[in-house]
């Protein structure tokens, strides 16, 4: 199937969905239950004109990116270390298998108690959620490097440090990349939960407070924007992979 054909199909499918939504909303005729697409657009325009939507989007995005990058910066070296050292794996393993079952959302309140209602608690929460995903992916990527690759490098004269920097790190880039992509998706999950519980700004805050004003259209506008933002950041990440990391992701980027 050609690129243009599949792009056209995607466009048609979105348009078809909007049509069904419009017809469904007209049939139900209850804007407090299901607003029409046009109502959502005018509602969004209201929020845009008073500046709420843009600033909320910016603040949510800032929290996501800051937490995601912070978490990755911690997770990548940790994952490389856990992947290469049996001792490190033994030290870190029990914590991984414990915290795996403690979702970030369970920690929202605790983080607010510890780090306050400001930006710190939200950024750290996203960093927490990111760290585990990226670290586990990185470590399993290191573990999946064929032994022959390591042995080959050593037989070609690479010392231990060179083997790490020239083989282990580049060979793990696909798993790091995919881990960060998964973590980005989970960051959106976490930020909404955090902003619903404790924030005076952000898309999650709009979704939560719209109910007080019976503005289901605002709620829809924020939800759609959230999805669009996620879609867009994922696209940007994919593009970055294709452009900047192409040689490392030759086999991994085919999804």
């Amino acid at each position: 199937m050609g690129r243009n054909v599949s792009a056209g199909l995607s466009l048609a499918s979105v348009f078809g969905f909007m049509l069904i939504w419009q017809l469904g909303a007209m049939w139900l005729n209850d804007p407090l239950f299901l607003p029409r697409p046009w109502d959502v657009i005018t509602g969004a325009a209201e929020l845009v004109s008073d500046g709420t939507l843009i600033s909320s989007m910016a603040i949510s995005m800032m929290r996501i990116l800051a937490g995601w990058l912070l978490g990755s910066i911690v997770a990548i070296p940790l994952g490389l270390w856990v992947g290469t050292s049996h001792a490190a794996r033994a030290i870190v393993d029990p914590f991984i298998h414990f915290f795996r079952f403690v979702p970030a959302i369970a920690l929202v309140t605790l983080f607010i108690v510890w780090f306050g209602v400001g930006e710190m608690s939200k950024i750290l929460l996203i960093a927490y959620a990111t760290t585990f995903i990226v670290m586990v992916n990185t470590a399993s990527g290191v573990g999946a490097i064929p032994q022959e690759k390591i042995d080959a490098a050593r037989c070609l004269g690479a010392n231990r440090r060179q083997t790490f920097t020239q083989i282990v790190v580049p060979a793990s880039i696909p798993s790091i990349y995919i881990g960060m992509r998964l973590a980005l998706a989970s960051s959106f999950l976490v930020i909404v939960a955090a902003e619903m519980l404790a924030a005076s700004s952000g898309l999650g805050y709009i979704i939560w407070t719209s109910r007080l004003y019976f503005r289901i259209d605002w709620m829809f506008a924020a939800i759609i924007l959230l999805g669009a933002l996620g879609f867009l950041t994922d696209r940007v990440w994919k593009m970055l992979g294709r452009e900047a990391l192409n040689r490392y992701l030759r086999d991994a980027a085919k999804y």
Partner: protein
Amino acid sequence: MTAARDTAAIDFRDVGMAYPGQAKGSELILAELSLSIPEGEFFVLVGPSGSGKSTLLKLIAGTAFPTEGEVKTFDQDIHGPDRQRGMVFQSVEGPLFDWLTVEENVGFGPKMAGADGATRRATAQRFIDMVGLKGHEHKYPSELSGGMKQRVQIARTLAADPKVVLLDEPFAALDALTRRVLQREIARIWTETGRTFLYVTHDIREAVLLGQRIGVMSRGPRASIRNIYDIDLPYPRDDLDSRFAEIVRKLEGDIEREASGQWDEM
């Protein structure tokens, strides 16, 4: 051959080997194994599967260590892998560096040795030409066929300028036609480089095609070299020659007896 005893390229003296964790005497994979390979020789090792052929190569490469006895190269102890002893692996996908082009893969050894970019490229080009990959310098491994990948491995190993080249069934995973072509070429490459080649295979025809001497391993555990044959045929060898066939038959008989354990009963 006796004169080479002290300065042999590879020298096994009463070597026994058990992998860690099962280090009981009864579980030695190799036992009382002695073998001396002079510099510049093409030595082929054949034997039934599970006889420890790959283990023997690992002892030379320095990725494994003997439990008993000693393994030396040019009278030196082996403390770990280094560029003196290059290795060509059976695996087609595993050993190549997927994120590097053919040229960068082949230039890896010189890079580790600190060569500058121009020297690296020149060295890489020389060995890329030698293995017949001219024109594929800027391709990535995923763009190459299995046979071409093994050519990259061979070029990469030689470009690191090793004294000893270890080949662990390098063509076993390839189709029959590609295998035949590469078997011919490896004999030519050995002649051109003049290095010591130690080639492991379970294909007797291949062994007779390549080896100056062929060592037949006994059945494991406690495997050792059962017999060594001098193959006095000129290169390039002709596998349709009657003497070739005779040697193959003799070796096949030996290995069959080895595999069925008949020797132990004789």
